[in-house]
């Protein structure tokens, strides 16, 4: 094999491994185990309060509260288990009488997020 062919051969091998390496990391990054979790209303535009928790962390135990008004009076609360990479839908009926409804969700490490809708 001539020296030029050896260089081409080496180049092709190096590029192949580089692409495999990048592809592996891309897959790894797109299936993260520490990308946090998210909460959202299933229907952002209606009065429906059903919300979803999507978990992309190793933690499983999640606590949620439904609170009413500016003073955040707790209406409902519960613990749920959401396995990493999964999501859980929590159906809620709108029973507010024209006030703000806040959904506050926290994990066992103290991370906290909230979403809300206002009906006044």
């Amino acid at each position, binding site marked *: 094999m001539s020296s*030029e062919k050896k*260089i081409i051969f080496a180049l092709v091998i190096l590029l192949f491994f580089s692409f495999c390496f990048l592809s592996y990391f*891309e897959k790894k990054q797109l299936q*993260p185990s520490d990308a946090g979790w998210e909460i959202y209303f299933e229907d952002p535009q209606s009065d429906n309060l059903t919300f979803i928790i999507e978990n992309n962390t190793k933690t499983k135990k999640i606590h949620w509260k439904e609170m009413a008004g500016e003073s955040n009076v707790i209406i409902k609360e519960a613990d749920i288990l959401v396995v990493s990479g999964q999501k859980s839908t929590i159906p809620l009926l709108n029973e507010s009488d024209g006030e703000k409804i806040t959904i506050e969700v926290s994990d066992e490490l103290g991370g906290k997020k909230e979403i809300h809708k*206002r009906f006044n």
Partner: protein
Amino acid sequence: MLELFQSQISFYLTIALVLFVPGYFMLLAFFGKEKLGVLERFIAATGLSILITDFLMLVMSRVEILFTRASLVITLLIFSASCFLVYRKRFKKAPGVAETKASSDFSFKQTLLIILILFLSIFIRSVYLQNNLPSSSTDLGHHMYWSKLFAESGKIQNYTQREIVLKDGAYQIDAPKPISDFVIGEHLIFTAISLISGASFISAFPVSVLLFINIFSLLAVFILSLRLFEASPQNKNIAIFALLFCGALFVIDPPQAKFVGGGVIGNILGNLLIPLTFYFYVRFLREKESVFLFFALFFSMGLFYTHHLSGLIFLLTFVGFVALSFLFNFQETKQVFFSQKRSWQSPLLLAFLVFSLVFVFIIYTPTYLTNSAVNTVVGAVKKIEHTGLSILQFRNVLGEARFALGAFGILLFLAPLRKSISRYSFLLLFSWISVITLISLAPGLVKISIPSGRVANYGVYPFAIISAFAFISVFGQKDFHKNLLVPFGQKLIIGAFLLLFIFINLDGFSDTTIYLKGNDSAKKTFQTFNASEYLATRMKKTDLLASDHVYLFADSWVKLFFMRDYYFPSYRANFERYENGVDKKEFCTRDMISNPGGELGEKCYSDLGTNFVMVNKLMDGAQFRKLNNFWQVYSNEEINIYYRNK
């Protein structure tokens, strides 16, 4: 696992089909295996394939053949097979016998060194780029929108943009207007690769393709150096050191891995095509064969269909080179222009002339010509980033070692020390370096208004070549001390060599240690993609979204989830763009995020009908939380989404 394996195989085959096969067979059809070495053919095939794919897709679009996997594969295969048949017919009598004639035979140590440099070049770039996955850069997001649009619609669309304007006292989004920021050649290869391989635009594939092109641009410099210094017995060593100086040193700094990760597609393509274009001109001037001129012209034309700034740098260098050739190499240049009539009048060149005219006037005219964008480049320098760099800034862009050696190389060129270097090689390199230096340092003198920093980055490649020349001129010969003007002792020279080599490597690798530290960009990108996906599945066609470029990571990629318009979602730009009086003349995009409850913010929401907004929760969440008409409907680690309930 099987799916991953299949997608990988499909991707590699597509890369070969789009970025190698058509160019390889076209080179075979024109040169056989005689005039280009194996390595030269392999490297030139990549640049040529990019241009052929672009041109074929432009023709397909013109004759209204939709871009699909089948149509693209068939077109590329028909073209390649036709070239192969021509090759078989033309070179039937001596198939593959004279392959070694044009090949360079490297020694074992040289081969090993080249492979080591390539290994370092690819390895460090890959390690850096894995921190940039999934892709998040602003430029790449913008570019991929167009590539995806062409892929989804199956044809080329006009580059247009919409803006918010005030009409009759009310804000509205005006009709689409042509934009000149993009050139078609920057996008078509990504469209082709995605359609054929099925790879998603929101994946590692664009970065992998750019890495591929970037590596081949280093090799283009390598083969160009081999030919520029062909008259020197040290040409292989010069080429190897040119590869080292532009490939393995300053690996991350622009225009290398940072440009790859940043998606600066035009510059990356330009840095491949410019050396290849010069390569064919150098071959023509040396060998006076019209087939080399044909390819030189083909690459020159391709540059203008790929990237306007690269095209301009090439054009100015070429004009400078011709002028310098008439001044300092009159006899030979006169002969090339006036006595080589047979070369100029060859049917091949006439065919090229017809091809280029048909292409420009009938098939596709680059948008920057139809939009008169040239007028914005030529003339007085207006923008601050166009006013030129200081010498210190220029040195930092090129890298201290490259800058110092490059300057020394120019002095060596000017000294009557090197008789073995062809005059054309010297004049071409001198013109290339002078044009880039002049536009980078004093654009006002040449009345060209383009970003000085971007232009300076083009200097890396010619400076790498001339640095390699300087280095080898001093240290690369057995009796090197006899070449020096001052007769130093041999031990002193060896000491100087070691010191210089250590300095070059320390300087060249210093950027690597800074950039290779991990970061959390993937995590942030993931948040933006998740939030975008949430909206894309829930927003109706009548809903409108405002987003933010200042604090949202990877925000330019949001539009790829909607594919409604290049302007969708509207976004708050960097604050200085609202203040310079040139870039942003409306303030809706700013106030809808910064002050949504203010008079202007309210009016903009009301007039435009924007009802969703996506912001960084820490930086911009507060002003929305206190407003009664905004519902916080989504929250992740970085982003909150608000719905404006009228």
